[in-house]
């Protein structure tokens, strides 16, 4: 995922992580919980997918490590926090615009989730 092909759509994992981080800095487990909350329990991300995506997002400059600090709600271990970058915000807003366009198109075609059967 290089900066020149940011125009292409984001993977669902990357999209959800960016969405979770758009509201503030989070550590790994915080991102997992936020993704689950944002998707109303529809998206459950494990550590393998989460850190694999984080690695590629760091490489692409979509997110960056902010600092290491203690989460008062968890234990006393220091955790790495991640934050969204300008490139990440742009990619997220492009993706949302793409979704808006699709929803608009679906409305125009009078399609609704009830009339479609999705097979992922």
């Amino acid at each position, binding site marked *: 995922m290089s900066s020149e092909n940011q125009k292409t759509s984001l993977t669902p994992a990357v999209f959800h992580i960016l969405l979770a981080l758009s509201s503030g800095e989070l550590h*790994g*487990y915080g991102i997992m919980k936020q993704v689950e909350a944002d998707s109303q329990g529809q998206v459950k991300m*494990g*550590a*393998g*997918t989460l*850190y*694999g995506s984080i*690695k590629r997002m760091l490489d692409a400059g979509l997110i960056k490590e902010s600092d290491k600090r203690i989460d008062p709600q968890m234990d006393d271990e220091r*955790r790495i926090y991640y934050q969204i970058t300008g490139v990440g915000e742009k990619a997220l807003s492009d993706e949302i615009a793409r979704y808006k366009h699709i929803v608009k198109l679906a409305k125009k075609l009078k399609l609704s989730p009830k009339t479609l059967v999705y097979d992922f």
Partner: protein
Amino acid sequence: MIFEQKTVLIIYKKLVAFYPPEFREQFGESMKQTFSDVCREHKREFHKIPLGLLIWMFMETSVGIIKEHFIKLKRGKNMENFKINFKSATIIGLISVLPFITLELVNRRTLSQDFPFPLFVFLWLLATAFIFMLMPIVQTVQTGNKIAAKPAVLLISGVFMVIIAFLWGSIVVDQMPCFMGVPNCD
């Protein structure tokens, strides 16, 4: 079924050790911490860590390990080396079979006789596999590294190479009369 958090964390640590070294160094600790967080939260809320959740987390991480290795292989020099070695092995394998193809063509008893394509393809594949296994060993020696650095890999490669060499030699010896055009050979 109730699982001790400490025990599953030890097993998870062992699993994380299978990630590529760079990935493990960068995210290994965070992954263990996140796994521990998930277990702790479930234990706090439900007083147990469900088996289904554990299986899912272990499976998900295992898939991640395979994915990271594949990405590393795809991006890194390994894939480049793999492609070069495979190409070279294919060519060398073909060259090793060419003399026997030539003998077969020169000594054919009749032109209408079927050419034994399957035999030569099989010989070619065996030779390719042998060279493909031999090349990394030769490259390791050439670069001055110890070939015994990975003894298990070396042993497995060695056993396979001996089997392939024996099979290849046996076929060639068995089929030599046919290559030489001896009548009634099989």
